[in-house]
């Protein structure tokens, strides 16, 4: 009987349960380290998105210059704004705030 015949007849022994546990534990450690690797990058990306969103919605400094000017047509209370981007609210809310609440 030569070596080839012996190998054909040979059966691998059953793996012990201890070996299974070691292999499984090693796999979990590897998987965990791979997943932890991306956490800082994901957090940085999420933070960047939040900061960009807040920056885009940041209140802009607005300067107003107001004057009251009269003419035969009546009294005009006029305010000049130094920025653009505002649109009219033609049906805006009107609220009365009583003196006690001020």
């Amino acid at each position, binding site marked *: 009987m030569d070596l080839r015949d012996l190998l054909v007849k040979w059966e691998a022994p059953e793996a012990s349960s201890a070996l299974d546990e070691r292999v499984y534990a090693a796999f979990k450690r590897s998987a965990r380290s791979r997943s932890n690797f991306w956490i800082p990058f994901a957090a940085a990306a999420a933070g960047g998105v939040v900061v960009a969103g807040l920056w885009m919605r940041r209140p802009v400094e607005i300067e107003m210059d107001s004057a009251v000017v*009269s003419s035969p*047509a009546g*009294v005009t209370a006029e305010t000049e704004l130094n920025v653009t981007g*505002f649109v009219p609210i033609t049906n805006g809310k009107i609220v009365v705030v009583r003196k006690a609440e001020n």
Partner: protein
Amino acid sequence: MKNTLCALLVAIPMLAQEPFPINDQVGLRILPRIYPKGNGMTNAHLSMKKDGPVHRVLRDSSGILFAYDIEVKLVEGQYHIVTEPVNPAYARTLRTEPVPTLRSVSDSVAGIGDSVIIELLSNTATGQRIVDDIKLVDITPAGTAPDGMLHIEYADLYANGSKLPHGSITGGATGPQFVMYLEGSGGFFFSLMQPKEYPQFQKVGVVEGSTLKFVWENRSYELRCTAPILSTGGGAEVWLFHDPNFRPKTAGAGAVQWGAESAMKMWLGKEEEEH
């Protein structure tokens, strides 16, 4: 919404603006506010016609952003602050078509010290809104002491004895400073105190009762009012400046325009901030 607007009142520092007198006891104060953040405005103190609306205009460098009218009525002992779409005839003078304005009339009963807050403009990119805080305030005179104001009421301006074209003011203004624009004659600027921020002023005017006399470039002027110019009824020296080529940059067009210190700042610019 109400809570938001109430929070706005607390969150933004008060910026002073003198009221327009409605009568001897009650004035109307208009205060534009920015939510959630903003700053800056100038003061104003001006008489208004007791029976007419106040035209409210907001604009930027591109034109009129919003305009509406405010009227205060006293009905059965209660003040009503009425906000309404801008008067069409007045809107035509604003040279913007169409003028953004309110859709409907709103009548709010308000007592002294109450605020009527009305949303006017919004910026969807920043989330900011601009509102007007309209308030009735007590302006009962404290007494008869000198108030340091020029009281210009229903005045005619004469040059070398002849009334200037468009030379009549059909209303009034009260303040330490007074400005008037007459088409064809330019701008006239008056101040009881030396306005250090504007070096072009000269102390060449004098108040005598209900007349303000001055000489500018060899022409003698008289601003003749229907009532004493000073609260004391007496006289005082006046600083003044005249620019025959001046044109006001305020939105409301008119051959005759006038105002107090806020109009002077807007018309001459805020030179004091550069010093």
